[in-house]
């Protein structure tokens, strides 16, 4: 019964969607705002990666909201899992020598790669969100490979809070110097070099720290529970 109702509902939905989709042509984006970002983006923000200049500069306030959503999801997960009645301490079988040595060799390399991704966010594909996810995958490797290791909660919370604080403080500095929140008040420099684009790389490094420590915290909470 339920299945039939669901299929009926989905058919109506599919017909409605397909009727409206024929009005949206594929392969020709007509938005003027995207064209403006492509034509003027390098000149206005100094970042050659237009996606980065949209995320951090043109829509920086939006990104602050999205980082907040991520933060609230991580906090919610921590709260839901921390109300457990009993914390059963399980015996942990230590990993074999090959596995733990492999983890120890790979972990710093993954961290360096993640940092490269978020430091070069305004030049190459990538940025704070992607770099943070890569760094969290490095910590996941440590949790799965060297099972007796645990990251320090204090350091993780410190990195998370610092990331958020740097983002907000830079926004407020823009307000103080030029009159609106998240103004790009630093010199733009020459495009296509590492020290260019003003506040964009600084904010992306802050986002990288924040996302990396939040995703690591999520992994930490879920592994504690298992």
């Amino acid at each position, binding site marked *: 019964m*339920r299945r039939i*109702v*669901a*299929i009926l*509902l*989905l058919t109506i*939905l*599919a017909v409605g*969607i*397909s009727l409206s*989709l024929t009005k*949206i*042509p*594929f*392969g*020709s*984006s007509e*938005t003027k*705002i*995207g064209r403006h*970002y*492509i*034509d003027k*983006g390098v000149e206005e923000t100094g970042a*050659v*990666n*237009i*996606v980065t*200049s*949209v*995320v951090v500069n043109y*829509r920086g306030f939006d*990104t602050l909201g*999205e980082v907040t*959503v*991520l933060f609230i*999801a*991580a906090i*919610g*997960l921590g709260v*839901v*899992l921390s*109300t*457990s009645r009993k914390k059963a301490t399980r015996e942990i079988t230590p990993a074999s020598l090959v596995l733990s040595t492999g983890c120890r060799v790979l972990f710093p390399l993954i961290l360096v790669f993640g940092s490269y991704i978020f430091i070069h966010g305004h030049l*190459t*594909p990538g*940025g704070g*969100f*992607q770099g*943070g*996810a890569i760094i969290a995958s490095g910590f996941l490797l440590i949790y799965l490979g060297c099972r007796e290791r645990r990251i320090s909660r204090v350091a993780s919370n410190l990195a998370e809070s610092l990331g958020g604080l740097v983002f907000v403080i830079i926004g407020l500095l823009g307000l103080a110097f030029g009159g609106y929140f998240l103004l790009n008040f630093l010199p733009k420099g020459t*495009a*296509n070099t590492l020290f260019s684009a003003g506040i964009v790389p600084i904010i992306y490094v802050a986002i990288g720290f924040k*996302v990396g420590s*939040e*995703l690591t915290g*999520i992994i930490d*909470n*879920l592994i504690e*529970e298992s």
Partner: protein
Amino acid sequence: MSFLDNYIYYIGAFGLILIGIYIILVKHNLIKVIIGLGILDTGVNLFLISIGYITKGTAPIFSRPGIDSEHMVDPVPQALVLTAIVIGVAVLALALSLAIRLYQHYDTLNLRKIRGQRW
């Protein structure tokens, strides 16, 4: 065939969205419902990306001087999806943590057997 060439990404995206909604409506296992949410999320992201696509498009990055900007894809949906993917992961983790709590409380993940979750 030109119809397929033009609309294959939209069909794929809305196929994923409809599959996700179907799983959420029909399945009884909470883990499967969460998997359905993940599929729905992927479909929405694919749809947003394919709206901004331009035929023979390239990434909107001026990695060398004098690069042709005529065929660059729309950067706005890419920027939206970039954050939506990370948020999707966090929301999935939150849903899984709620599933863990629910299992510890009711000793089952079958939504039919949990009072208040039945419809």
